């Protein structure tokens, strides 16, 4: 037995003991010569690491809370051989080493982020349409009484819907008394045109283009994809203080990505071609709200912020105009005026600012 001194707490009281270690069987016994104190036999395999730093080492016992054994400097080889080694970064990381583990985590993190961005497009079509419908209905309800209804206006909107959406892919198309140049597609195939957009448009053809675009989002279930993506990201990034945010604003600002927008434009052009409506006005509309007269009109053009406007998109609509086709306006003049007047002349409609969302 060497005279190597260790310090010891037995976990029952705070009295510090200055002990010698005597090996015995598969373990050891601690003895304090000055007081004649002797500890219980301890098995080497019960030791755990409490802390290893510089020249200070401290060990604990698996089953006795507060039991501690420690020393300064190097332990004699016959003791050191039995001591457990400590964790450094955590058990999994120690197994691989810091840099390999960091590499593995980086790859895994990249896969998770990529998955969170890509998976929704795969999952969305698997969500039963009936669930999505119920969800959209629960969300919208009567939109706080903000939907505009006049007999003539409703007829005009129905006429416009019948031409752009003859297959009734959208479950509902409505006009809301909100002075923003915007149109949204909500879950459950519901399209809402905002009155601001109708007022801003110079003709029914322009509204038809926007409606066709939103119909594209309905057909491809982009809203569901966006919702799942948002939910997925908030869960993945939940560690970074996940905040689900304002739901409505979330839906309004859902951006579906370049690919989805382009596909929706394709649907708009197809539907307009099928209905014999000229895409020229839509191109002009993009031109007008997107560009030159910056700062003149009310700049609350939200449709733009969620639908980044590129010259390319405008050109695509312009190029879809077929010179030899004879186009018919989306609505006749009377219908168009009825649609534009719908919100202003509906006495029952709730004001946008009337109550909080």
């Amino acid at each position, binding site marked *: 037995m060497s005279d190597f001194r260790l310090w010891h*707490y*037995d*976990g*029952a*009281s*705070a*009295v*510090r003991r200055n002990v010698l270690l005597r090996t015995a069987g598969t373990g050891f016994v601690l003895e304090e010569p000055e007081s004649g104190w002797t500890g219980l036999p301890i098995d080497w395999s019960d030791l755990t690491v*409490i*802390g290893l*730093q*510089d020249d*200070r080492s*401290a060990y*604990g016992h698996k089953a006795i*809370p*507060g*039991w*501690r054994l420690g020393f300064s400097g190097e332990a004699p080889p016959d003791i050191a051989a039995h001591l457990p080694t400590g964790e450094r*970064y*955590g058990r999994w*990381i120690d197994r691989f080493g*810091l840099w390999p*583990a*960091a590499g593995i*985590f*980086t790859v895994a*993190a990249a896969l*998770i*982020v990529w998955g969170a961005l890509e998976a929704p497009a795969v999952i969305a079509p698997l969500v039963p349409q009936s669930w999505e419908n119920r969800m959209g209905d*629960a*969300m*919208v*309800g*009567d*939109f*706080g*009484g903000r939907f505009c209804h006049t007999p003539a206006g409703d007829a005009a909107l129905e006429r416009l819907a019948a031409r752009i959406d003859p297959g009734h892919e959208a479950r509902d198309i409505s006009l809301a008394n909100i002075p923003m140049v915007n149109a949204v597609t909500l879950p459950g195939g519901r399209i809402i045109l905002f009155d601001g957009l109708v007022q801003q448009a110079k003709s029914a053809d322009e509204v038809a283009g926007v409606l066709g675009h939103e119909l594209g989002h309905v057909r491809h279930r982009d809203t569901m994809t966006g919702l799942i993506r948002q939910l997925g990201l908030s869960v*993945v*990034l*939940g*560690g*970074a203080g*996940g905040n*689900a945010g*304002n*739901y*409505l604003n979330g839906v309004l600002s859902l951006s579906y990505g370049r690919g989805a927008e382009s596909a929706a434009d394709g649907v708009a052009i197809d539907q307009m071609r099928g209905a014999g409506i000229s895409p020229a006005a839509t191109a002009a509309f993009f031109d007008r709200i997107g560009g030159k007269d910056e700062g003149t009109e009310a700049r609350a053009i939200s449709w733009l912020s969620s639908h980044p406007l590129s010259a390319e998109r405008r050109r695509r609509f312009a190029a879809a105009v077929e010179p030899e086709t004879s186009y018919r306006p989306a609505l006749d003049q009377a219908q168009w005026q009825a649609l534009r007047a719908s919100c202003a002349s509906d006495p029952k409609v709730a004001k946008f600012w009337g*109550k*909080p*969302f």
Partner: protein
Amino acid sequence: MDQERIGGDGFAFEGNWRDYAPIAFTNLLLTIVTLGIYRFWATTRTRRYLWANTRFIDDRLEWTGTGKELFLGFLMVLALIGLPFLFLQFGAQALVLQGHGGMAAILTLAAFVTIFYMVGLARFRALRYRLSRTWWHGIRGGSDDQGFGYGISYMWKSAVGSLALGLLVPWSMMSLWNERWNKMSFGPHSFESAGDHGPTFRRFLLFYLLPILLFVGGGAMVAMAGFPGQDGAGSRMAGAIFGIIAFVLTFYLGLGLIALAFYASFFREAVEGLSLTGLDFHFYARTKDWIWLFLGDIALVLCTIGIGSIFLQYRHWKFFVTHMGVTGTIYTDELTQSQTKTSRHGEGLLDALDVGAF
């Protein structure tokens, strides 16, 4: 030898930032590549270093908390509180959209009250968790109280504190501090906390005086700046603008400084009232020390484009320990093991909501 008499300085911090740097930088790296999940283990590594380099009287502290228990606590909070709130939020939006504004308001109010309660509960349990994972001489701290009652106290005392134009805030803060610490123990001994809010009150009153002083002083300054400038409206204008800028700066800086001065005083008084059997605790940091701490923080973060923030926890702990003091006598043979309960797999639900514990 079982008795320790302690002079003024029972606490000392014996680490240095060069030893801590490898921990801080690898923590940062691993936290980034795991999308933040490693931060529970990072916290544990940091605390283990900080505690192990903190000497209390004759021996160092030990931190035995684990990253896994923090992580599990986080998952439990996410499942039991995060998800219901997510649904509540979506539900409230849907209700508003459908015109049931009143119902939504009630739901939102209920959510607010619940969160308010949880903050108090979490604060209590964070302190309890930290004490139960802090060891010295093989003995740990803890509490047998679950903190549910404290959550209620937190609600009504905070509410009362904000009555009378907030004049009762020092009372509510100190009273909550005392209530929290009186339920904690180390080994077999209970902490006794009898902090007095009275001495902190003068500084708190400055909050009320400063705006008045500033309005009077600022008004005078603007008037003075305008008065001699008879040579033109331009210089009078410049004087007024200068006056307004100086006023706004003084206002915010002044309020910040007063808040700091109040907090310095509050923390001194609070720790001064704290004792554990024969030991009396002290805290020596003056307002000036707190100002240097924060100026140092700002300089550290700015000069390193933010990376220095990984050393903030280290700096704050060092500040806390170096200004802590303890006097009195402790008998190590009477300091026996704590019999307080700790949950089998680490901790209860809210220990993970690790809000500032002290």
